[in-house]
């Protein structure tokens, strides 16, 4: 299989570009946030510099041109000639967006907004004081060499070159012999060595230069070609290049061929290129300078991840397979435990103890494997600033996006599905949440709105919040629209919170004109559905005049759960342990009726709603008469309820199996799992069960009752 190595490198280049673009953006944002560390601006410069360098190798002209002007502006900034004030940084950020588009255009052939690129290019040039040096690249090295002889229009057939190196020439690693060899490549040479300045051996400085050469080169070449041979050493030697006027061979100097000359030089002259034995002090000993240049990596963890341990790249399929296998391992281990118990082996028997150890080990393996797929949410959060900028530009509302908790880790499967909901929510926050600059001014708020995006771990789940400091939910309007759409009855009494949550109803939009930012209007109901399919919940809280906060809570991973195994009407169910506060054994008369059909129980003096799980899921019509066990559960919003179950069988870690993969979402059920006996048990969705019991009819199904009986 013939693989074009250059094509492979091109792939690497585009991958690297994505990394550099991310560094570029985060560095600019840090600077916008007040970061003045020199290393930050250097990193930003290097990012664009790298992209430009690679682009040059692949001939991506548009990208090169833009990157060049961008790089020039950044160079001005890092040398202190251009101040990183907010206006300038905003231009830089938008330029970074255009740069990203150009990179992707180079990779995928996608379209670029030419006008935008042009205007930002001009803006960047303007920042550099107009001239921005749009010139193309110099090619191979043009040291400022001083033309020694008058330039002649026609290349004469022979040249005389007089060459006397100075000590620095050798100190920089150049070698006279090699230069002469290069010269010889241009044509036949006659070389004469001048040793007149060579002192006696005792007075010789091993680092000194005492030799000089005169070379007659017979070749029809331009003087520039000869000068180019010496381009590296210009300034470290005396060099004279002149045409030989008419004088051909016949000069009194002995003709020696170059190789013999080289041999002679290398054998008897103490050229510094050889004798490096005495560690004399380096000409410009600047070890101190070096130490100060290599600044300690910025403690703010600015952009660069300082090689925090080796990493390897792994095929995601392999990780997924590993996780599936570990899941099966957990199930099998549980089944084994169960069978051992049923076989009647004593708890203290070696088999039982061995099984305990196995369970411990399996759990550890599972934790480790889960951690492989865990990723910081940063990868999703990273796309948001650009989105915010675009929406801000489209709506004409200045916005600042603040992100927190980017290092919070979540399973990869969850992360990928976060992008869409987050995008919608941020669009919403800017488009609907924030008021216009005029309205904000009138309300005494700063013109720039703030949208805050944060992620954190809280009680075994990941909580993501999107909040804005806008006007909050207009409850009167929401209520009116809900009544108009028939979502609620005209005389329904709703708490503020319930009113706010109306916006999650399908087809609900308070915008009088559909803001068609992406070409499609999206409602919060779609967002809620996406979050729910991830096993998560979303709620909103709003303060009129101050802003709104959307809170999403998601499971850390989609794969395992610590659960309490219970029974209700013969059905085995699993309640997520994170939702269970405690278990109680109430007496039947502890439970009191409230209204028609409602039941409550006093728990340490507080009246708490009582829900019969069998009834809630439709397994039976009426709550059980006999004494039951109560699970005091707490939902995401903090409200508590007592779930009545028939029996508690124990606590287990269970592997979550999707119900939706082959069927669909079932109300009251979050997912399923497979118990030790191989049977499927449903995992309860505590929040929806509690919510359903608050107002709606309990779920009814004759079929279920028959099956459960």
């Amino acid at each position, binding site marked *: 299989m013939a693989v074009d190595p250059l094509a492979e490198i091109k792939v690497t280049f585009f991958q690297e570009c994505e990394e550099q673009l991310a560094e570029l953006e985060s560095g600019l944002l840090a600077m916008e946030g007040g970061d003045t560390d020199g290393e930050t601006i250097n990193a930003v410069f290097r990012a664009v510099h790298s992209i430009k360098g690679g682009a040059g190798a692949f001939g991506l002209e548009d990208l090169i041109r833009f990157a060049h002007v961008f790089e020039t502006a950044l160079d001005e900034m890092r040398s202190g000639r251009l101040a990183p004030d907010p206006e300038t940084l905003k231009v830089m950020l938008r330029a970074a967006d255009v740069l990203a588009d150009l990179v992707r255009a180079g990779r995928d052939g996608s379209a670029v907004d030419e006008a935008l690129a042009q205007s930002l290019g001009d803006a960047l040039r303007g920042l550099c004081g107009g001239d921005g040096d749009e010139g193309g690249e110099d090619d191979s090295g043009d040291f400022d060499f001083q033309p020694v002889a008058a330039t002649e229009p026609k290349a004469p057939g022979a040249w005389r070159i007089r060459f006397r190196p100075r000590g620095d020439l050798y100190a920089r690693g150049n070698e006279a012999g090699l230069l002469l060899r290069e010269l010889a490549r241009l044509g036949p040479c006659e070389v004469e060595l001048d040793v007149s300045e060579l002192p006696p051996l005792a007075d010789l400085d091993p680092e000194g230069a005492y030799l000089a050469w005169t070379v007659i080169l017979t070749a029809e070449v331009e003087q520039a070609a000869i000068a180019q041979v010496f381009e590296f050493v210009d300034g470290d030697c005396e060099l004279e290049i002149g045409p030989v006027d008419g004088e051909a061979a016949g000069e009194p100097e002995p003709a020696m061929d170059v190789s013999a000359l080289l041999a002679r030089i290398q054998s008897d002259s103490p050229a510094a290129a050889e004798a490096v034995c005495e560690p004399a002090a380096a000409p410009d000993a600047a070890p101190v300078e070096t130490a100060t240049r290599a600044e300690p990596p910025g403690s703010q963890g600015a952009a660069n991840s300082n090689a925090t341990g080796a990493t390897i790249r792994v095929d995601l399929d392999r990780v997924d397979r590993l996780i599936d296998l570990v899941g099966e391992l957990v199930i099998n281990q549980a089944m084994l435990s169960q069978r051992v118990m049923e076989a009647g082996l004593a708890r203290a028997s070696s088999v039982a103890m061995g099984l305990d150890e196995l369970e411990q080990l399996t759990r550890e393996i599972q934790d480790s494997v889960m951690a492989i797929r865990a990723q910081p949410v940063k990868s999703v959060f990273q796309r948001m600033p650009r989105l915010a900028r675009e929406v801000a530009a489209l709506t004409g509302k200045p916005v600042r996006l603040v992100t927190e908790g980017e290092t919070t880790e979540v399973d990869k499967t969850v992360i990928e599905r976060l992008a869409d909901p987050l995008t919608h929510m941020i669009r919403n926050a800017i488009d609907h949440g924030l008021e216009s600059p005029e309205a904000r001014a009138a309300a005494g708020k700063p013109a720039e709105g703030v949208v805050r995006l944060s992620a954190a771990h809280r009680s075994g789940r990941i909580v993501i919040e999107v909040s804005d400091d806008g006007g909050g939910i207009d409850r009167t309007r929401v209520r009116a629209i809900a009544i108009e759409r028939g979502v609620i009855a005209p005389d329904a009494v709703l708490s503020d919170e319930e009113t706010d949550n109306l916006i999650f109803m399908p087809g609900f939009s308070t915008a009088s004109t559909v803001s068609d930012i992406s070409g499609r209007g999206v409602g919060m109901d779609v967002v809620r559905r996406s979050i729910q399919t991830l096993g998560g919940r979303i709620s909103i809280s709003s303060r009129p005049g101050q802003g709104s906060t959307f809170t999403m809570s998601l499971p850390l991973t989609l794969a395992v759960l610590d659960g309490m195994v219970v029974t209700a009407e013969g059905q085995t169910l699993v309640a997520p342990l994170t939702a269970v506060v405690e278990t109680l054994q109430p007496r039947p008369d502890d439970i009191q009726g409230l209204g028609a059909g409602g039941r409550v129980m006093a728990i340490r003096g507080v009246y708490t709603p009582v829900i019969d799980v069998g009834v809630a899921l*439709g397994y039976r019509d009426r709550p059980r008469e006999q004494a039951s066990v109560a699970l005091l559960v707490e939902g995401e919003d903090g409200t508590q309820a007592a779930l009545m179950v028939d029996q508690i069988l124990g606590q287990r870690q269970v592997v979550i199996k999707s119900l939706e993969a*082959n069927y*669909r979402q079932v109300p009251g059920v979050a997912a399923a799992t497979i118990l030790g006996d191989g049977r*499927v*048990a449903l995992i309860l969705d505590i929040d929806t069960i509690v919510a359903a019991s608050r107002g709606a009819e309990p779920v009814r199904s004759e079929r279920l009752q028959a099956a*459960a009986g």
Partner: protein
Amino acid sequence: MTQPSATEGRPRELISFRIGAQEFCVDIMAVREIRGWTAATALPQSPAFVRGVINLRGAVLPIVDLAARLGFDATEATDRHVIIVAQILGQTVGLLVDAVSDILTITDEVVQPTPDVASDMAKTFVRGLLAVEGRMISLVGLDHILPQELQDAA
């Protein structure tokens, strides 16, 4: 294997099974495996013909009582009943039937159009009729076996 006379057209294989006194068949390409009946875990808020879910090598498989789905009385499942595991529109579903009879190879011409009878079931699910050795076998299309909302969400 029965081979009704085939004139032209591509042959395809069908698997035939029995529900009560009637015989049906489905395209074998949709069938993943045949299993014996195991008790299913009931699902709340499901139509009557969805018996519940069972564990199929670690995956959760919904079981549709095909008799109930086709409009007959619900099946009283026993160990001798059979579950046909089928792939329907990207989901794997188990179909509860009485017993599997045969594998047929036919070509399209031998399939007769469904006669117009007063049965919703017939109209929705039966794609055609086959006459095989004097028996009538109804060809069932599986696309609508699952509850309707599922397809809207899909």
